[in-house]
C-alpha cells in the first residue's frame, strides 16, 4: 500500500480509480476496462512527473521524511555483504537510533554507520525515531576509531530529525558527544564519505557528515533547524513552515550550489519510496565512485582535504 503525502492527494485519487477499475474487471470477466485504466495510468504518470518535476522546499521535506522511504537498515542490508553489527559505547548503553558495524561494499571492507528511524510503530520507538543520544555518537566515535586503526574507509548514512532533546541525553553530555564526533570525523586518516538519505537534522547530522565527500539524495534535506522550529522562532508561528523551508535553503539543489553537498544522487520519479531498490543501487554506485576517487590518498592528504573543504565553505553564496 502506498502512503500518499498530502500534496499527492489528486494523484492518489487517479491511481485509486485505476486500481478500482481493474479490481472490477477481475471480478467480472466480461468487462474490458483496460483502455480506461491505461488512460488513467497515463494521467497518473503525467501528474507524478509534473508534481515531482518541481517540488517546493516544503514538499521536499515531506518526501525526505516519507515513512516508506528506504532507511539506513535497508541500505545496509542491500549494499553490504558480511555486515556485522557492532554495538555499544563502552560507557553507558547501546543506542538503537544509530546502527553501525563492519561490512563489505563490493570487495572493500568498510565501517558503516548511520541513523535508523524504524519503519513501524514498534521499531520507531525502539529506534527513537532516529534521534540519537550521546551513546549513539560515542558508539560512532568508537567505530570511527576502529576504522582508523585498521585503515578501513568510513561510510555514514545520515537520516535524523536531530539529536534527541531529553533530560538524560543532556545530563550525559549531548553537546560534548556531538562535538567530539565532529572532531573525530576531522581527525580520521581514512576516507570518510557521507550520504544524506533523508533528513540531515542539524548538529545530529554534522556529527556524522563532516566528510571528505557529502552526497545527497535528490529529495533529501540538510538544515540547521527544522522548518517548523525555524517558523516558530522567527515567524512566531509554527504554521509558517512553508516560508521557513523556502528561506532556509535546505534542498540538495541549493546545498550543491553552496558547496555543502558535493554530489546529488538522482531518485526515481515520485521519490525514493516508489522504487527503493533503484534508489539503493544508485547510492551504492555513488559510494563506490566516491571511495575509488580517494584511492591512493594518504592519511595526511585525507585530513588536509577535509580541513580545507570546511575552511573554504561559505565563500560561495547563492545567485540572486
Amino acid at each position: 500500500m502506498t502512503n500518499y503525502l498530502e500534496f499527492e492527494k489528486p494523484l492518489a485519487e487517479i491511481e485509486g480509480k485505476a486500481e478500482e477499475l481493474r479490481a472490477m474487471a477481475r471480478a467480472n470477466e466480461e468487462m474490458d476496462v483496460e483502455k480506461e485504466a491505461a488512460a488513467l495510468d497515463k494521467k497518473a504518470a503525467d501528474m507524478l512527473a509534473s508534481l515531482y518535476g518541481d517540488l517546493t522546499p516544503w514538499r521536499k521535506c515531506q518526501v525526505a521524511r516519507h515513512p516508506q522511504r528506504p532507511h539506513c537498515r535497508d541500505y545496509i542490508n542491500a549494499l553490504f555483504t558480511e555486515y556485522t553489527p557492532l554495538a555499544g559505547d563502552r560507557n553507558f548503553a547501546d543506542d538503537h537510533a544509530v546502527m553501525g558495524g563492519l561490512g563489505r561494499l563490493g570487495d572493500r571492507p568498510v565501517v558503516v554507520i548511520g541513523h535508523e528511524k524504524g519503519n513501524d510503530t514498534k521499531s520507531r520507538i525502539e529506534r527513537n525515531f532516529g534521534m540519537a543520544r550521546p551513546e549513539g555518537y560515542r558508539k560512532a566515535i568508537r567505530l570511527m576509531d576502529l576504522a582508523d586503526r585498521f585503515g578501513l574507509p568510513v561510510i555514514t548514512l545520515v537520516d535524523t530529525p536531530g539529536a534527541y532533546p531529553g533530560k538524560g541525553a543532556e545530563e550525559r553530555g549531548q553537546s560534548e558527544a556531538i562535538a567530539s564526533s565532529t572532531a573525530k570525523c576531522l581527525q580520521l586518516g581514512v576516507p570518510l564519505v557521507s550520504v544524506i538519505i533523508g533528513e540531515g537534522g542539524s548538529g545530529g547530522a554534522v556529527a556524522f557528515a563532516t566528510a571528505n565527500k557529502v552526497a545527497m539524495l535528490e529529495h533529501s534535506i540538510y538544515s540547521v533547524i527544522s522548518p517548523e522550529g525555524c517558523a516558530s522562532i522567527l515567524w512566531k508561528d509554527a504554521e509558517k513552515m512553508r516560508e521557513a523551508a523556502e528561506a532556509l535553503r535546505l534542498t540538495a539543489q541549493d546545498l550543491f550550489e553552496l558547496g555543502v553537498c558535493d554530489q546529488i544522487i538522482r531518485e526515481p520519479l515520485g521519490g525514493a519510496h516508489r522504487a527503493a531498490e533503484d534508489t539503493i543501487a544508485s547510492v551504492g554506485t555513488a559510494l563506490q565512485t566516491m571511495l575509488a576517487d580517494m584511492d591512493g590518498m594518504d592519511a595526511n592528504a585525507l585530513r588536509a582535504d577535509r580541513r580545507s573543504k570546511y575552511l573554504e565553505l561559505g565563500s560561495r553564496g547563492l545567485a540572486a
Partner: protein
Amino acid sequence: MNWISNYVRPRINSIFSRREVPENLWTKCDDCGTMLFHRELTENLNVCTNCQHHMPITPRARFEGLFDGGIFVEVDVPEPLADPLQFRDQKKYVDRIKDARRNTAEKEAMLVVEGEIGRTPVVAAGQDFSFMAGSMGMYVGNAIIAAAERAVELRRPLILFSAAGGARMQEGILSLMQMPRTTVAVEMLKEANLPYIVVLTHPTTGGVTASYAMLGDVQIAEPGALICFAGPRVIEQTIREKLPEGFQRAEYLLDHGMLDRVTPRGEMRDELITIVRMLMKLDPAVSGDLPSPADDVAEAAEDAPDDANV
C-alpha cells in the same frame, strides 16, 4: 484620539521623563531586583553586589577587566559574504544586522584580541550575546579560525568566552557548517600543543555548545550559566515532565562531570593566569607584582573610541 494626544503629548512626556531619570544611572539586578548604581556595577564586572548574580557583560568590557592595564589589540577577522542566502523572515536579515550594529556599536557577535593577562601573553575571543543573541554565523566562525591561527602564529594559548543562543538561522546551512569549521580551528590548537581554555558564560546553547565550546582542554563556567544543547523549554515539551531544579546550570553540569570548574567572574582573571602559566610551563605569577586590569574600568569604557568598532 487626536493629533495632540497621539503625537504632541508623548513627545512632551518623553522630554520630561528623560530629564527626570538620567539614563544608565541605575540598573536593576535581574535576579534579586536590587537597584545597583551603574558605576559600582561596572566596577564589579556586572556582578550584582548584593546577590552575586552574574549579569551579561560585553566582550569589550570583559577584556578591559581582564587584560593588564585594560590594554588589548584587536585581531582582524576576515569579512564573510553578507547575507549569502538573501534570507528574509518577517524582517530582512540585512536589516537585523544593521539594527544589531547600531544597538551594540560592534561589528559582529565575536571580538578577537591579543594582549597580556598578568604578564602572560594570550589570544582571547569573546562572544557577544547582545549582538543577535551571540549567534554563530560565518563571521563568528571566521573569528574563531582567526583566533586559532593567531594563537598558533604567536604560540600563545587561546581563551574563549562563549555566549550564544546557538547557530544563526538566517545563514541557514552555512551557520551549521560553522560547527565543523570551528572544530578545525580547535584541531589547529591541539596540533600545535597550545592550551585552549573555554569559559562558558550565560547562556551557551545549541550548535555552539555542540562544537567549539565543549572542546576545551579546560572547561570553566561562570556561576548560574545555562549550558545546554537543547534548551529546557524544548525538553519539557518533548518529555512532558518538570525538570529538576538547577537543570543545565553550570553547577549541575559540574556535578555531572561536564565541566572542570565553576568560577565567579571576579576570580576568573587570577584563575586563568594560574592555569595558563602552568600549562605553558611558565614560572608562577608573583602575587603583588601583577599589573592590574584597567584602574577604572568605567572610565576606560567611556574613553574607548566609538568609531574603532564600526
